[in-house]
Every structure is written in C-alpha cells, then in structure tokens.
C-alpha cells in the first residue's frame, strides 16, 4: 500500500518543530509490517536520500517495555485497543491513508527529538513512594503471609502498567492519575504494602502534582488508551486513599 505520513519533526527540546509530509518514502508498504517497521523503512529511505531519519523510541517491540510512544491519527499507540504502537500492524490501514504521527504532548514530557519525549516525571513519581521499604535479606518466607487470590489478582491488574505514558498522552488534561493510581493501587492492595500506604499515597500524589501534570476530570480517555487495560477504578481507590491519609495521617 502507499501512504502519506505527516510526522512531527523537531531537532531538540528548544526547536519549535513542525510537521513534515512523506509520500515517496511510504510506498509499497506491506500489511504485515508493524507500525514501527513502517517507520524503520521510511528511515532507511530517508538516510539513503541523505536526510535525517525520524527519531522515535522503541525497544522490546513486543508490547511490554513501554518504550514506544507516539500518537497515531489522534490516538496514543494508534487505533487498536489494548495494543502498543510496536504491536500495531499495517493491516489497520489501507492504501491511500493519511497518517498523522505526533509525540506524547504534555508539559511534563518535553520533546527530546521528533517523536521522542522525556518521561522522567514518571520515574520521579515512583521514586517518591512507589516501593515497599524492605531491605534485601530481611524478607520473611514468601508463604508466611497468605494473600487471597482475589487480592493478588487485583494487585496484578494494577501492576500490569508498563509505564508508557499513553494515559497522560490521551488525557485531555495531560493528567498522570491513571499511572500514579495504578502503582499506588498495586502496592496498597497487598498486605506487604499496607504499612506505608498512607505516606505512599500522599508522597506520590504530591510528586505527581509537582511534575506539572494536569488534573483528572473523569473523561476516562486514559482507560481507553491504556495498552494494558488498566481500569480507572484505580483512580477512585487513590482518591479514597488520599482523603483518608490526608485526614488521618499525622
């Protein structure tokens, strides 16, 4: 198939950037390619023409590392549900399609180059409290605390987050609440995480606010965009935990 791409090109964080149109480079595209392989092919052709290839993040290319990050025709990771950009395949498109590719857009995710953004803000949120403070060596036997299957499954549902930031990209307010809440829910749900639940919730929400993300107005676009199907109910859990911690924690 032949396609027309409009790709956001931006030299570095300071550059103002703009869209570039590509048509010659996107001819004879196989429907079996993944979306990132399309970009690989375009890049090979650009280099052969002596132009700079399109910079984009990707690593595992099997939908688990959370590195790839691009908004494809107005949707983070593109049109398929529960699918990262690397797992999106060109069967999703047809000959003659026009595709817009943009980076994640958020103040807290500054563009580094073209489609690559800096997601350090997500690390900062985890560093604020997304852990259980147990030193290596002091752990009790793993079966010493029983954890019901329902609880373990609920924690696992939240823990499935791959930290790609699609929730932020999809949110009309560029809010990181789904990401933050998923981590808080994962840890707070498990008995191991309970001793620090209040402090964790306060600290992580605080870090999220400090990073300059927007607020949640319950559009649920985050839930729709999440490649790992994290449910926005975790945000409600976080809201409850935050109120409890704010009102009771000394």
């Amino acid at each position, binding site marked *: 198939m032949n396609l027309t791409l409009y790709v956001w090109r931006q*030299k*570095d964080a300071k550059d103002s950037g703009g869209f570039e149109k590509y048509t010659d480079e996107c001819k004879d595209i196989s*429907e*079996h*390619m*993944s979306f990132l*392989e399309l970009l*690989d092919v375009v890049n090979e052709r650009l*280099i*052969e023409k*002596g*132009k*700079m*290839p399109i*910079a984009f993040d*990707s*690593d*595992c*290319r*099997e*939908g*688990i590392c*959370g*590195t790839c990050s691009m908004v494809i025709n107005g949707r983070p990771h593109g049109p398929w549900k529960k*699918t990262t950009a690397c797992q999106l*395949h060109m069967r999703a498109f047809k000959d003659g399609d026009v595709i817009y590719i943009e980076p994640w857009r958020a103040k807290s995710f500054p563009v*580094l180059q073209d489609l*690559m953004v*800096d*997601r*350090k803000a*997500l*690390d900062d949120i*985890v*560093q*604020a409290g*997304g*852990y*259980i*403070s*147990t*030193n*290596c060596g*002091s*752990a*009790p036997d*793993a*079966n010493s605390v*029983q*954890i*019901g*299957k329902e609880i*373990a499954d609920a*924690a*696992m549902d939240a*823990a*499935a987050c*791959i*930290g790609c930031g699609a929730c932020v990209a999809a949110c009309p307010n560029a809010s990181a609440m789904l990401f933050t809440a998923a981590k808080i829910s*994962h840890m707070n749900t498990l008995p191991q995480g309970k001793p620090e639940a209040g402090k964790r919730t306060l600290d992580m929400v605080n870090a999220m606010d400090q990073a300059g993300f927007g607020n949640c107005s319950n559009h649920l676009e985050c839930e729709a965009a999440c490649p790992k199907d994290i449910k926005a109910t975790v945000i409600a859990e976080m809201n409850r935990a935050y109120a409890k911690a704010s009102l009771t924690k000394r």
Partner: protein
Amino acid sequence: MNLDAKIPEGPIAEKWENAKFSYKLVNPANKRKFDIIIVGSGLAGGSAAATLAELGYNVACFCYQDSPRRAHSIAAQGGINAAKNYQGDGDSVYRLFYDTVKGGDYRSREANVYRLAQVSRNIIDQATAMGVPFAREYGGTLANRSFGGAQVSRTFYARGQTGQQLLLGVYAGLSRQIKAGKVTMFTRHEMLEMVTHEGRAAGIVTRDMVSGKIESHAGHSVIMASGGYGNTFYLSTNAMGCNVTASYRAYKKGAGFANPCYTQIHPTCIPVSGEYQSKLTLMSESLRNDGRIWVPKNKEDCKKKPEQIPEEDRDYYLERKYPAFGNLVPRDVASRNAKLMCDEGRGVGATGFGVYLDFSDAIQRLGKKLVEERYGNLFEMYERITGDDPYSTPMKIYPAVHYTMGGLWVDYNLQSTVPGLFVLGEANFSDHGANRLGASALMQGLADGYFVIPYTLGNYLGSEKPEKISTDHAVFKEAEKSCKDRIEKLLAIDGKRTVDSFHKELGLIMWEHCGMARNESGLKKALELIPALREEFWSDVRVPGSGANLNQSLEKAGRVADFLEFGEIMCRDALTRDESCGGHFREEHQTEEGEAKRVDEKFSHAAVWEYKGEGNEPTRHEEPMTFEHVKFSSRSYK
C-alpha cells in the same frame, strides 16, 4: 590469563556458607567511602544497585533506556524457578542444582550452580516482600507450575509477565535508593569504554545519548550487567537496543570472554514475514503442550492453505521421530527439526521458513472454551501480529535466537579476569552451561544481584582496598579521546549503505553459519565473510547527523561495529568447539538419530578468549569443568 575459579573449600552444600564466612567485611562506616559503577539496570544490575546502596555503598547506575524499568528482563514471560518445594512434589536445592547442570549439558561450574539453587529460595521471599504479585491459590499460598518439561512444579509466575513484575520489584527498590541519594541513576547513557588502571577496573566512559556528551565515571569497582549478545543475529527476541558493546569493551580491556558460541534458540517464535522484519516475537513454550507441529509431506503442498492439505499428506515430524516425547522434546531438538524440515523445502509461509502449530485436535478434544482459557492471550497476541486466527487456521512458528549462555568469564565471586570488574546476569557465562533451562534466566539475574555480589564485592573492597583514581587521570582522557575519535570516524565515512543494512547482512551470515546447526566449512566461510563485511562497513556506512546531540543512527553504528567484531569470535569459538553440546550443535557430531553428541574427554571445559590487540587473533584458554556430583549422561527423547 589466570582462570582460577576460586571455588571455596568444603562439601558442595557448605561452600557458599564457608565462603561468606571467609569473606572480608567492610565496616558499615566505611561503605560510604566506596563508589561502585553498575552498567545495566535489569534484574541483575538493578538488584545489585539497590542492594549495594542499601548496604551503604555509593552507586552510579547506567542504562541506555529512558528508565531503568525498561531493561529487557521485562520481556520474560514464563516464570522463575526456585527450589521452594511448596508443592511437596520432591523438589529440593539438590534437584534444581542437578537439573540445571544436566540441562546445561555438563558445561557449567557445579559450585556456582549449587549456590544458584540455594539462593533461589531467597529470591522468591525477597520479590514477594517487594510487592511482586505472584500468582496465588484461592487459599492465599503461592501457586507453581511445571515449566519446560521439568518433572516438578517449581516455577513461580505472575500471569504472562513474570519478567516485568520482577523487574518492577527491582525498580521499586532501586527507586527508593535513588530517592535516598544512594544511587545516582544515569538513563539514556551508553557505556562506550571501560577504563583500567594498573590492571584494575577503574571506571567507564559513557555517552549521554541526549546531549552527545562523552563523560568519564570513576569508581572503586565496576559491575557489568549489560545482558546478552543475541542481537549479533540482528533478528532475535532481544530488544532493539540490546547490544554487546559493554561486554566487548571489557573484553578488549583484558576480560576473558567465555563460550561465545553458546546461544539458545527458542522453537516457538512467530516466523519472519519479510525483509523489513525488525525483531522476532516469542510465543510461550506452553503452546507445545496441546499444539501439534507438522509440515506438508510434499513440497508442492507448501503453498496451499493448510486446510486444503488432507491428514494423510501431513507430516507430524516430531511425533514421528520422537514417539515418547512427541511435540514436547527440548527446545534445541524442536528447533533443529524445524530447520531440517525447512531445509528440505517443506517449510510453510511466505518465506518458507515456518512450520505449523495446529490446535484443531486440541479444540476437538478439549473444546474451544478450554483452549481459550489456556491460550487465549497468546492466540490474541498471535492474531494481532499475523492477522491469522489460530482457532480456525494453524499457527506458523519458527525458531529464533533467544538467549546467550556465553559471556564474560567470572570466577566463583563473579569477578572477571580484570580485578575489580564483576559481571552479573546474562552478561556472564557461569551458570547455564551450554543450554539454559526455561524460567532460569530470571533466577540467575536476581541471584547474582540480590544475593551474591553484595558479599563478594565486599570481600574485594575489604581485602584489596582498591584506590579510586580521578577522572582527570590520563587513562580516562585517553579513553574519552578514543571514544570521540571512533565517533568522528563513523560520521566521517559518509558512504552509501545504512547501518541497519550491515546489521541485517551480519545477522544472515550468523544465522546461516553459526545458528541452529553449525559445521566446519560453514564456520570457516563465516570467518571470511565477516571481516569482509566489517571492512565494507568501515568504508561505506552512512551515519547521518552529528555526535553532538541525539543521534539514533550513530548509536546503532557503534553497536553494529562491535557486533561485526564479536560475530567473528562467536564463529571462532564455534569452530574450535569441535563437539555438540546444548545450544551448540555441530553437524559433525551427532548420533545416528541426529542427536547432539558431546566430546567430554576433549571439551569438558569453558573456552575463554583473550584479546590480543588489533589485527591479532585472540588466544583461547580453557577452564576445566569437573563433575563430582552430577553424572555424565547423554539425552534421549526417543
């Protein structure tokens, strides 16, 4: 080259205890005076960084990804082994040890493997304490499954993403130490050079992949946990960024490289669909429990739709050749047979490199619902990638490079031949011998990082009392200059071919001649092709842009340049290891049934390669492997 493995005294079960007692300790107040450099933030590097920081050392941790949470450990699906015997089915430390040595085809070090089996139990405790949501039974205890043909259920898992969950546990601990100021994390930093001073590891030189800045980092010790070299083949299940540069730079600075020819090929991956293919996706091995593997009996049928091929024209070759194990033969046997079928011209799919994995019998026998329960996620993933629905048409699979057992040589203390340089996880050679068992990679990475290095590093620092040199020292300045020169050189070539085109070509050479089955003439041919390709690379590669900012082509070029040298060592090692063992199959050494045949009297050793300078052939050394506890035997799956 000194290959003293420093195996502690005493009976095998007491060696680790004895060692820990004999190790020198570093006074708690003195730990903060030591600076440790860690390259890599996966299960091994991340857990080492967190644990050493908890102990009080100052840690600087480097990764090329934008966050330590993205290291490729994340992609492991199946699970992690541990000799907990929670199921009461007869597992023990000794049995895990025994299985691992045997599975490694008698090419690993017994003492190391025993320790691995011992600490495997602590890993589960530690990971659980860090909040890893392992699967549980309704009663609340941990669930286990049997994996990769093991006779006991010793595999712990978290849905199909055990690697991600374990890595997130490690990342959580690491994040805590970053917040506490004990770990300085350098993301989007690539190690380009290792620096030694008076024979000891003194630090590294890195490139900031965003600003392009070349920077030196000095420490009292350097820990390398930079993963495997599967991407030498271009196509593998590794992440796009996985590379051999860190290990290879260490090798060039005097660290011996052991058994580079040991690569593991995974039988159930989604086949290549075209030239544009950038990586291969693994489908869980569990599919072979219910799927039947076949190819058409007649070449002419290969282009037909599978539904059009009648039952009598299908060759269920694994069931035919191995009636006892059928479709459940070990990874290497399944892989090799798929290759044989395709080499006979009976492969299926667009490229002819694929075999069918058919679930129609299973669906008839178990019902679609049960099949969906067991494999629904995998079928969904397969359909997403290929567009075929496995419920109605057979899957197509083909083997792919998955894991590399070889790596930098280390002694019992995980120290390389360069004092002060320690190597953990897939980057070292130690525990899996010539073949790794399923669900053992995660175990080894975490064992090294959480439970071994914190003791052995202390011993090094406590007994050797290494000095840290300034980054202004001439050795750093020289290393920086050589990095800069190399970058300049790559940018200046301005040839016609892209970096990827060279990488793909190298991959094809490696896959053809140093892949699933190897032989003398093929390897010799590869040893001619690779240097020629390397020469072409250095005269005709085109790397656009500059080194002074983010430049993904330049990053790739540096890595491919190293793969182009490293591939040669792999072939050299494969050529000199004139036997078949584990993942290394030499066609000259097989039984009449086509099984791998070891030559124990000549090759019961680790082959360790020593760099001898530009243009010189590396020297091969041997560390003998002796087996006091596990008896030699050869496999049979008939």
